[in-house]
């Protein structure tokens, strides 16, 4: 039975320098520091209680959490994954609390990336109080490294309910809702989390953030630019431990009935119609 994912919900990152990472998340990225449980610091970007967290550890062990629609969907997902031979682990009560979700299961995707399917990510009555005026409207999508895009695309689109919106060369952009993409599968010789996207309110926010990042000597790895696929105006930059973050605005919405996926050539103009060149190994050959 197809696993019905509603949306991307959270990322859980590990870092050897917890103080530095928390400093980045608030002072540079602009998130609200929401709570601290033990050695884990959680951050808010929107109405949700938390969408990003850092704890002490190995940066390659990042986890991406997705929201499923119901308890029934979660049980079905656990059964499906189990049948397929994935080692599925049930989240404990305290683990649920630290994620601000009602329930979740954890497993490793076909490439070994840590994935969680969660139920009912909790929301607060108020929106996030951003640490600075970054214009962030919310955590929106992730890029995942893929050592085998055919295999991983099969997992996300056949085992799960993702749909291909566009492809740039062998890089598929997958949607979970009307939003053009929630997952980008980036061909690479590794697996795991490739980038973390936050949407901002306007193009002014993208460019103002770009200036601020430059002032703080944050490495800009792509942009400012505009993706011809989703139409989003973006800037990509490097955070702690080489993790790439993105601010973007204006991702197009897709009409499920009429939209047809497109194939773009793997060339710089397919990634940025303004002419920016990516300084990201996997996006520039």
């Amino acid at each position, binding site marked *: 039975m197809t696993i019905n994912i509603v949306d991307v919900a959270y990322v859980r990152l590990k870092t050897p320098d917890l103080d530095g990472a928390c400093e980045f998340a608030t002072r540079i990225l602009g998130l609200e520091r929401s709570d601290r449980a033990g050695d884990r610091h959680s951050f808010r970007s929107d109405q949700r209680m938390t969408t990003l967290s850092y704890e002490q550890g190995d940066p390659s062990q990042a986890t991406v959490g997705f929201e499923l629609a119901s308890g029934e969907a979660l049980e079905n997902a656990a059964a499906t994954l189990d049948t397929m031979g994935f080692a599925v682990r049930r989240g404990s009560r305290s683990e649920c609390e630290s994620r601000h979700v009602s329930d979740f299961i954890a497993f490793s995707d076909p490439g070994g990336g840590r994935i969680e399917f969660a139920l009912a990510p909790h929301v607060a009555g108020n929106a996030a109080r951003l640490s600075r005026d970054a214009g962030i409207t919310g955590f929106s999508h992730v890029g995942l490294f893929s050592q085998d895009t055919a295999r991983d695309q099969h997992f996300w689109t056949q085992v799960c309910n993702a749909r291909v919106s566009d492809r740039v060369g062998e890089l598929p952009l997958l949607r979970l809702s009307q939003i053009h993409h929630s997952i980008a599968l980036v061909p690479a010789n590794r697996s795991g989390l490739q980038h973390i996207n936050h949407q901002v309110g306007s*193009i*002014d926010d993208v*460019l*103002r953030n*770009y*200036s*601020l990042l430059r*002032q703080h000597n944050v490495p800009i790895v792509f942009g*400012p*630019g*505009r993706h011809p696929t989703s139409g989003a*105006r973006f800037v990509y930059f490097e955070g702690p431990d080489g993790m790439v973050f993105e601010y973007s605005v204006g991702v197009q919405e897709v009409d499920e009935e009429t939209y047809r996926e497109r194939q773009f050539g793997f060339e710089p103009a397919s990634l940025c*119609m*303004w*002419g*920016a060149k990516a300084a990201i190994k996997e996006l520039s050959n």
Partner: protein
Amino acid sequence: MLEQLRFVRIPVPSLDADSSILADIVGLEAVERLKWCARFRSDARAYSLELDASGAAERPVIGVSLRTVEQLNEVERMLAERGWGVERIPAEICRDRRYYAGLACRDLGGNNIELVVRAEDKSRRCFPSRDAGVVGLSQVTIGSRDPAADAAVWTDVLGARIADRVGEAVYLGWDEAHHRIMLVPSARDKFVVVGFEVESIDVLMQSNYYFLDRQVGIVRGPGKEPASGQVFLTFGGPSPDTYFSYWTKSDPWSGARRPRQFAAMPDSYCSWGSASAVTELGGDAS
């Protein structure tokens, strides 16, 4: 009374090198090449930019159109009374410059302002050699020793309005655009920024990367002007004091609005926080 910012004439030492900048970099259409001048189109006008290698003018000339010869006659005396130098342009020269009649003026600081009537348009659309998305000549920035005094002549005699101020600088407009002329304090006699409206942020940003690839000197932006809401990209022209700028369409002017005073600080020139290498426009004094 003022109708349209009509053209800019820029004195240059030689036509050859500078002509190619206008066609290949700025993205204008080269239309006329005479012995001492070269003309370029940006829109329906016969030309909106002229390079002048005759040596006749030392400083750039800003052409602004009025509707009628009667208006021209009317302002001739009034401008002279306010301290402008005013000369009638002989009919033969007017013909050559493709307008019916004109006054060659010098403002209080010596800027050349040409007031003209019935400047020619062309029936064929502009067909530039580079797709820079230029929509047309839209605005100029010129230097002034005393922007307040210069602006008073524009408003009192020519009917311009003050849209906003940044420090001592004054934005002057007269139509639906936020401004057409910006007077900025400058010690440079030949200082001019010739501004062309482009169709979108997309083409402006494409030019940004096109210039970076070709090492065209960007001096300001990409940025956004708080007063007009226009996104801009400013780059070097044929001489050290001449600049070109692309601008997106300005916020529409509302007659109900009061002129604002922006503080004389870099943020007032760019709300995105872009760097400026132009002292007159929020750059560090060099």
